[in-house]
């Protein structure tokens, strides 16, 4: 009971924070920054407490709140924690204070408005993860767009208007289709079984013919695939990342992209199992294409933010591969990879932001020998690079290894029985992704850290205490997840099993469940 | 042709002349006058029908329309006058500020 209240508090704390900012004085930047940091840290502390209280042996929702909202439509305000979202909620809460602290020295214009935007995005992201009612989920999904749009558009780089409009329209387009699909889904549930409800737990019992399922999945998948992003719907990401301010990039890479994969895992695939089975070869091919395409493109970029942006596309390809493998090992790996990418990409973008503040350029060619100029910075950079490459003992390895193992495990039997060669071919290509990953990240490290020293506006100051603390926390989390993944995986295990069960059970009308 | 048909014919003629005028003429004030002509044509047909039914409804309606038309003209003419003062011409072609 108390936990349910705390969960609501965790959700609404950023909104309260935004409200507090509204009434606080406008030009006292320090006060604004501290207030934001305090609120975000409080949110993290409460989330950590809930994380500790989360019972791994209970399947289904914990700390649930269910209040009627729009009775006649069957819409409820329903939030709760389960294995699907526990790690992502933790990630969001963890990155909140880090984003805030990371932006201390880079944002000096309209600081209050900026942090209000950060709060609103945090609120929307938290809500999307916690929502168990499809209407509520959709509201939060859309709610995140406007603050992000403003953040990129106001505090962004040179081509920010183009980038932010592209981001907004692209994402909104997918969402509109998803709304249509949601409405149709609820409507068909009502006509077939008389239940009027937007609750996920009810919708998952709907029975739809394969044609309907396919169209609905296509609509959902489009929206989620744009968010992930999957190739070929990814072109908004490099532009958005490059033009966004550091905090925006960190939020985008750290959490926002996970909303797409979370959507697939929670809604897309479980709601339409038969269509998923039909589309799996295509989706899996796109996932592997994302892995390879993203890596290849990262190899030839000269803008350091673009390298990390394309690496995100590559990493999240692994997540999709894991989810589609329908093996417990792969699914668990996918969840870990989501969290790992969130940490590593957030860390790398924070580091790019730190060096940008000092040198004001994002061109790789403008840098060199940073290992000598800023050694402490270089150590953190190297650690995060290796985590991105998937070196064992880091979270990147845990995610990639389990995903690839799952993909292979799913692909081997059909191959041996001579039924289907594609999954194995895809799995082998995906494994080659580890080589490409090393190639582009080490090229980045080579040009960035080693060789003759070269950096605009040198001499450069090395990391200060605030920066070291932020990066230190991320690095600790990366190693914790890399060395001791057992504990987080306990928490997500039942959800992974439930996911597998839901996606492999046919729900065509007329078939027995 | 009996009286009703004659009157209706006249009403239609008035209306058509007015409509034609609105479409063809370029002078703003003339367009206004033609719109009034259309209105009168409609009123005439209304009076004709009212007389046929022999109820008071028709007559009441006619007087209502007179009042509204007067109010409308009272507003329209000053607006046109202000516009004309602005544009310094009565030619409708000059009034294309709403162009897309």
């Amino acid at each position: 009971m108390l936990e349910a209240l705390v969960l609501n508090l965790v959700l609404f704390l950023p909104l309260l924070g935004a409200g507090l900012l509204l009434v606080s004085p406008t030009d006292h930047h320090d006060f604004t920054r501290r207030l934001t940091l305090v609120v975000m840290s409080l949110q993290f502390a409460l989330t950590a407490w809930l994380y500790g209280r989360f019972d791994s042996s209970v399947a289904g929702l914990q700390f649930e709140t269910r209040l009627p909202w729009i009775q006649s439509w069957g819409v409820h305000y329903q939030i709760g924690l389960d294995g699907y979202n526990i790690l992502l909620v933790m990630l969001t809460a963890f990155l909140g204070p880090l984003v805030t602290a990371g932006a201390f020295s880079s944002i000096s214009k309209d600081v209050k408005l900026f942090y209000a935007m950060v709060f609103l995005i945090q609120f929307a992201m938290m809500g999307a993860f916690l929502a168990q009612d499809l209407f509520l989920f959709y509201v939060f999904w859309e709610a995140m767009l406007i603050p992000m749009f403003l953040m990129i558009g106001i505090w962004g780089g040179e081509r920010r208007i183009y980038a932010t409009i592209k981001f907004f329209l692209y994402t909104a387009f997918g969402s509109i289709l998803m709304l249509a699909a949601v409405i149709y889904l609820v409507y068909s549930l009502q006509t077939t079984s008389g239940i009027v409800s937007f609750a996920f737990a009810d919708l998952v019992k709907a029975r739809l013919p394969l044609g309907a399922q396919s169209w609905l999945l296509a609509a959902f998948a489009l929206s989620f695939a744009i968010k992930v992003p999957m190739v070929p719907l990814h072109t908004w990401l490099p532009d958005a990342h490059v033009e966004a301010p550091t905090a925006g990039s960190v939020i985008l890479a750290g959490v926002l992209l996970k909303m797409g994969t979370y959507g697939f895992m929670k809604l897309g695939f479980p709601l339409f199992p038969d269509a998923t089975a039909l589309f799996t070869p295509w989706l899996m091919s796109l996932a592997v294409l994302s892995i390879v395409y993203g890596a290849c493109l990262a190899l030839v970029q000269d803008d350091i933010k673009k390298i990390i942006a394309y690496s995100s596309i590559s990493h999240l390809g692994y997540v999709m591969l894991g989810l589609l493998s329908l093996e417990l090992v792969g699914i668990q790996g996918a969840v870990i990879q989501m969290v790992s990418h969130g940490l590593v990409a957030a860390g790398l973008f924070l580091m790019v932001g730190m060096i940008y503040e000092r040198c004001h350029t994002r061109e790789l060619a403008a840098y060199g020998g940073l290992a000598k100029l800023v050694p402490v910075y270089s150590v953190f950079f190297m650690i995060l690079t290796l985590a991105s490459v998937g070196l064992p003992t880091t979270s990147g390895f845990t995610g990639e290894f389990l995903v690839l193992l799952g993909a292979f495990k799913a692909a081997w039997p059909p191959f041996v029985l001579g039924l289907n060669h594609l999954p194995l071919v895809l799995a082998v290509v995906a494994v080659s992704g580890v080589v490409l990953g090393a190639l582009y990240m080490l090229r980045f490290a080579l040009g960035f850290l080693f060789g003759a020293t070269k950096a605009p506006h040198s001499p450069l100051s090395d990391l200060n205490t605030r920066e070291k603390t932020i990066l230190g926390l991320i690095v600790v989390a990366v190693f914790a997840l890399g060395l001791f993944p057992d504990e987080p995986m306990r928490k997500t295990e039942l959800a992974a099993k439930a996911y597998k069960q839901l996606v492999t059970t046919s729900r065509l009308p007329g078939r027995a469940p | 042709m009996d009286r009703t048909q004659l009157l209706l014919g006249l009403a239609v003629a008035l209306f058509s002349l007015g409509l034609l005028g609105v479409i063809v003429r370029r002078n703003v004030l003339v367009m206004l006058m033609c719109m009034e002509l259309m209105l009168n044509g409609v009123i005439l047909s209304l009076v004709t029908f009212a007389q046929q039914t022999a109820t008071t409804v028709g007559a009441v309606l006619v007087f209502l329309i007179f009042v509204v038309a007067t109010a409308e003209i009272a507003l329209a003419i000053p607006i046109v006058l202000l516009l004309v003062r602005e544009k310094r011409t009565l030619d409708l072609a000059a009034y294309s500020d709403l162009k897309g």
Partner: protein
Amino acid sequence: MLTLIVLLPLLGFLLNGVLATQLGGNRVGKSFVTIVGCGLPILSFLLVVKVFFDLQAGGYAPLVETAYRWALVGRSSFEIAFYFDRLSAVMALIVTGVGSVIHVYSVGYMAHDKSFGRFFAYLNLFLFFMLLLVLGRSLLVLFVGWEGVGLASYLLIGFWFEDLANARAGKKAFVVNRIGDAGFLLGMFVLYQAFGTLNMDSINSAFGIGAAKVVPASLVGILLFIGATGKSAQIPLHVWLPDAMAGPTPVSALIHAATMVTAGIYLVARMSGVYLHAPEASAVIAVVGVATAFFAATVAIVQTDIKKVLAYSTVSQLGLMFLALGVGAYGVAIFHVVTHAFFKACLFLGAGSVIHALGGEQDIRRMGGLRQRIPVTFWTFAIATAAIAGIPPLAGFFSKDEILWFAFASTRGGSPLLWGVAALTALMTAFYMFRLLWLTFMGESRMAAKVEAHVHESPLSMTGVLMLLALLSAVGGFFALPHFLEPQLPLPVVDEALHHLEKPLLVLSIVIAFAGLAAAAYVFGAGTSRAEGLQRRFAGLHRWLSGKYFIDELYERLIGRPLVWLSDFVFLRLGDRVLLDGTLNGLAALGRRGAGLLVRLQTGSLHLYAWFVLVGIVGALLWSWRHA
């Protein structure tokens, strides 16, 4: 206890890495770094010795120690566990033993380097991962160590990163290793798929009781071997090792001679249970091994950098070890690993001593006449050279001779052809090693004048180690390692019909070794004039060999450039910009043009609007009249 052995070097890494570098503000001095950096590995070594005695006391029953559970998925559990049996004991002793002495050597060698603390931190990190590799129970733990030593190698090759070429060499090593690792991962996946576990002892015994029918052993064998090719620098993934010489010499000795590169051999030997049932894979290993040995030896003959000669020599010797593995003589391969660790480390450290004495000179064309000036270095180098050439009764002779014998006579794939190529390789080995010895130490000095003035013998921390390793190179062969390992790694059955050829072949090996010595003495004994004459006669061949068969260039042309072309032109410009962004921007432009067309209706002309209203009304009336 096993966990402690593994963790001690990690502690050294953390302490030195934080306190002795700029990360922690350079808080401690060289003595702290030395005590921690050398002391912890030595402590590890002593603990390994102790555990070895425990093992012996327990009748060599394998010791298993589980540290903790890494992950549990369904019913299969991934655990971090350590395993100590005869094979692990041998490997652990070499890793910690030779490792510790090289740490001690580094104290003297790196004494003037400003990143002294960082160097020892990285060395300790390497030792930690290497111990994980050899003591791990499951392929997962081995893989963690496998990748980890790759990391340490990357960091240490590029240690002097101000020169971009060094960092580039480190990157090359890591990436080429990764290619091998992809194969390794696939092999692991097949095994996991079949057995639900990655514990090597379980897998080996499963194959022993007939799993070969269910799982294609050769497929697994080849996949794991791909990993081994990467790590142990065999064709086609050998290209990183010569470039790795960019790192400081102790690194070359420790990582690229004695320990890391032998990880591939350890892997195959450890998984012998699989390879015993995989004749196709074993054949591939033997052929690749002997081909690499031959090819690398030919290149070593013409190299002019002292370290590059030794690097190619290492590749060649590793090839011979794989040859032994390929014909089923797993214990013999490990024997050669041990002896090779002794004499190759001695050679590399000796080279380091020479480089140190000459103030950085590495080109053997500018050496010579050092025999009297740095005698300890010379004598230890000479002993190690004789050992690698196979001169009896030094260590190399025993291990190499056994390899040649089994290559010839093993019923698991031995053949005269394999023996022939291997024997030729042995001849070339003796030749180029004595060439190296002659050109570096003997004859008239060809040194630059100011280099010659500063020639001095190395400090005791360096020469002491050299003497120890030279001693081990001399007597190391007398310890009958293959027989020690036999209960675990049985020696292959020898073809009965060929038994009588054992002694003649033994004599032939000795003849080959001395023939190589004699040839080298003849060509290089009187300075470089005869050699230069030969070089002119065979200019084309010489260019081909000096260019290492231009394999690096081939890879660049076949893989490197096409990959960049594909990524840049096809994916980036064509795919992303033209196709995808073009579609998007095209759709936006379409929208704008459509709006442009519609806007023409808004002419601002009231007449037109009125006309539209009229047309609309008429149309609506007609429609309703039609459909009434």
